[in-house]
């Protein structure tokens, strides 16, 4: 009987000890920053976002801790895989709260539902990939911020760039949230130019062959195609068009620069030549130095991001850490807000400070929000780049893009 009591007491002590552990050790408290992204569905995007966030906290705390007020804290990145599912994304946000997350760095999926859950606890959500028009609304969703070009900005820049060319454009989008939001933005951007748009077609994400849809686009009389879709769908659309001998220019949102597009087309590198994508500019007005500094730090921390293809001369192609930049910037804004609030546990204060602080972003641009604007990237700060020989360079026929330098994408010897 005595032995049984001892055993029971030991078990209770163990349970108590384990319950008390986890988030704090000694005087240092761990703050979790959750990265909620489709790691399994589009690993490149998920990993890049997580790496950007990790780079920011590693810089902030080095190998030690970050003093805030009279205490010291240690940030930790925790990954949550959405698999591209809104329900999983919402579930992840709940799990993240359970794990004590102070902020969510989010790809954007499921934010329509997760923002209100996070708002109850004054937890900020930073969207760093999706640009859906109504994802961010400072009045309705005061805890949602975004540092990435909006779909609205990209779509209007595409219209501004393409309409003067007098092209007949087929607009294709996939049935993912990314594609549907893009289609909405394009519809608004091209609303006054009905004669320029020959057709609008939805591409099924799960289809293995998009030949029927591309044939319909071709029959519509189009001589250019905009594909607003996830990277694998863009690759399939290109394959369907090129294999049918339809050699028209393709325009895409930032997903066109995803390594998977080039990986899918590795057997036909010539098919990707001429693919033009719109994206947020990587280098700032003040010059390329801040971006290259960031790129250097990123590569030092995580190594080179190899695309998995080579140029015609056999050089290994590497990917610039573009999406990492936005996650990096959001974490820096968050850290500045926490510092300004003086107490990370006072979440309402931290949230309020998110609208007050300003930080210098990875590319040298200033990143800040205010009570009326939770967008961290200027809407028209979008450039165009075109692929040639598996690497891309800013286009020459756009005033903004033509001023930008080409970021090297060849693995150094």
């Amino acid at each position: 009987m005595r032995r049984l009591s001892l055993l029971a007491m030991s078990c209770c002590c163990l349970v108590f000890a384990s319950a008390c552990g986890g988030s704090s050790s000694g005087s240092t408290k761990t703050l979790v920053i959750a990265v909620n992204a489709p790691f399994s569905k589009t690993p490149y995007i998920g990993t890049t976002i997580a790496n950007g966030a990790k780079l920011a906290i590693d810089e902030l705390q080095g190998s030690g801790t970050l003093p805030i007020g009279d205490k010291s804290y240690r940030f930790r990145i925790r990954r949550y895989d959405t698999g591209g599912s809104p329900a999983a994304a919402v579930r992840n946000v709940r799990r993240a709260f359970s794990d004590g997350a102070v902020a969510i760095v989010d790809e954007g999926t499921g934010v329509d539902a997760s923002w209100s859950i996070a708002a109850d606890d004054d937890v900020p959500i930073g969207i760093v990939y999706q640009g859906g028009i109504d994802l961010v609304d400072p009045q309705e969703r005061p805890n949602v911020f975004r540092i990435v070009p909006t779909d609205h900005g990209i779509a209007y820049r595409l219209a501004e760039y393409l309409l003067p060319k007098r092209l007949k454009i087929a607009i294709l989008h996939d049935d993912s949230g990314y594609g549907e939001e893009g289609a909405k933005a394009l519809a608004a951007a091209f609303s006054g130019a009905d004669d320029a748009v020959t057709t609008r077609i939805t591409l099924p994400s799960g289809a293995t062959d998009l030949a029927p849809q591309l044939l319909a686009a071709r029959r519509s009389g189009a001589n250019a195609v905009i594909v607003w879709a996830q990277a694998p769908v863009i690759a399939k659309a290109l394959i369907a068009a090129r294999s049918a001998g339809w050699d028209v220019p393709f325009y895409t949102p930032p997903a066109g620069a995803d390594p998977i597009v080039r990986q899918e087309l590795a057997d036909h590198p010539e098919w990707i030549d001429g693919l033009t994508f719109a994206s947020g500019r990587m280098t700032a007005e003040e010059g390329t130095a801040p971006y290259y500094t960031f790129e250097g730090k990123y590569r030092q921390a995580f190594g080179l991001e190899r695309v998995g293809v080579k140029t015609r001369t056999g050089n290994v192609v590497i990917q610039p850490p573009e999406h990492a930049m936005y996650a990096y910037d959001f974490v820096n804004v968050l850290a500045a807000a926490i510092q300004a609030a003086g107490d990370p546990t006072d979440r309402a204060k931290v949230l309020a400070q998110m609208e007050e602080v300003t930080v210098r972003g990875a590319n040298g641009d200033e990143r800040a929000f205010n009570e009326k604007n939770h967008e961290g990237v200027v809407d028209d700060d979008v450039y165009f780049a075109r692929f040639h020989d598996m690497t891309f360079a800013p286009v020459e026929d756009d005033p903004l893009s033509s001023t930008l330098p080409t970021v090297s994408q060849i693995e150094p010897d």
Partner: protein
Amino acid sequence: MNAVAARTTGAFGAALTEARRAWRWPATLATAAFVVALFAPLVLSRIQTQELAAWLYLALAAIGLAFAVGLAGMPSLCEGAFMAVGAFTAAQLRSKAGADPVSATIAGAALATAAGALLGIAFVRLGRVLFAVATWLVAWLVALSLAAFPELSGGARGLPIRAGAFTETIHYELALVLVALAALVFFAIARGAPGLALAALRVRPPAARVLGVPATRLRLGAFVASAGIGGLAGALAVQLAGIADPAGYGPFLSFKLFAAVLLGGAATALGPLAGLAAISALFHIAHWIGNLENVSTTRFEPMIAAALLLFVLGIGGGGIVPWLRRFVPARTATIEASPAPPPRRFAGATFAAAGIRKSFGGLAALVDLSLTAEPGTIVALIGPNGSGKTTALRIFSGTLVSDGGRLTLDGAPLIADTTTERVRSGVARTLQRTAVFDELTALENVLVGAGLERGYGGAIRSALATPKERAETERLRGEALDILDLVGLRAAASTPAAHLSSSDQRLTMLAAALATRPRVLLLDEPAAGGSAEDVARLARLLDALRGDGLTIVLVEHNLRLVSAVAERVVVLDGGRTIADGPPAEVAREPTVRDAYLGTHRL
């Protein structure tokens, strides 16, 4: 008023006594587990409570599916679709119409029930394979519709739902209570009259039908219940999740639930819970291993579920709970002596067939068959194989429609056109082949036949075990034991029918037919395969039944039995009547000797 109170108190007392008598340690264990689970949110975190509640809603849907799969034996592969109907109805009402959680839930469950009723009317008559295919197509159709109509489903972004008054703890407690209730109702129905009838239908549909089991109505009821419970689970689960995500309601959800139900044991109340727990545990282990290797295992989930399903089918389809039951010592069922019922009298009726005709294509199976059987007599129909005897019995029992002719019972035309209605009119039949319900005991086999007599044996009364239902069950049980006594099988009342000898199985069939309180009994080769002793026992039984006033039409090849018991013999050959009269007279007919008897003697 006092009388009502006294009756109610008495009924409660009787119910308590009965429950105490039936109480066993698994019930104690289940009750203890339920009570402990009720208090779980006190020690669980919010997210754990939330995830457990989500799992319980899925378990609720699995139990709902077990009503169709386990009780009715219908392989429904669209439970996920019913969850989707409930979920998106509730989500639309909550997000677009601003409905409160309760109204949205009721509407979701109601729409799923209505969808289940519509589909059920179309599908329940299908065979199992076609039923599975049809419901699988429904699962796909709903998933494709959700994708095709983003304005209804929210498209790839889903339909967000603002948090309502239900916290995760309320959801958890509600889900737990609903799961317990659903399991109890399943248990009560499975043990009650509808469960017996459905078990009979599941095991041997033709044999159940000839006992008057209303197959379509019962199957439809089970399918609609599964749809309603699925819709309820979906409507609540989506509000707990906070978002209706069309991708979460694909055909895999239906498949996963189906696999869980079969894995756990479809015909048991706790089977779906056990199956779902096993599948969820496997998914978790896979995710854990995947996380170690930095690989997402989500895409392997259907493969794991399919492998488990194949495993269960490979080991005979029993499932976890039935397998575990083997380790629980079975309590010997004692058949207590019931108060001696009054001697049973079968009020026979004059059964007459006049000018019955039936052709199959160009083949005339019956040509102008006429016969009359009076109460307290046995008329035998004999003839070579293919002469039309069984066709005649099938027409008499309502399983086959004649091309012409007239059937009357005590002079009144028999216009009932379904087997159930024919049995209700007083015409019961046994099948040619041995067709007992293997899973049921001899007593339960007989009780299946007594189902038509029930006035208080519906699903709701059975689930609530009302005093009238229990009193009726007790009465019918006594009568069934009396019938088993009559056929000499009282000692085998609690023996599973599968363990009876073939001659006892035939007697069990006969007892089940007698339990329908027939006025006319149609027997199709009851002595087939029996020993001389079995035939003698059967002859004594038929003699006794005749003595009780029953009208019997006997199709039999055993001429010794025919000559021993029949007053009249009608001989068929090629669908035509070649002789009709007392056995001795018929035996002398040269045409009969040529066509059938040969060297045999009647």
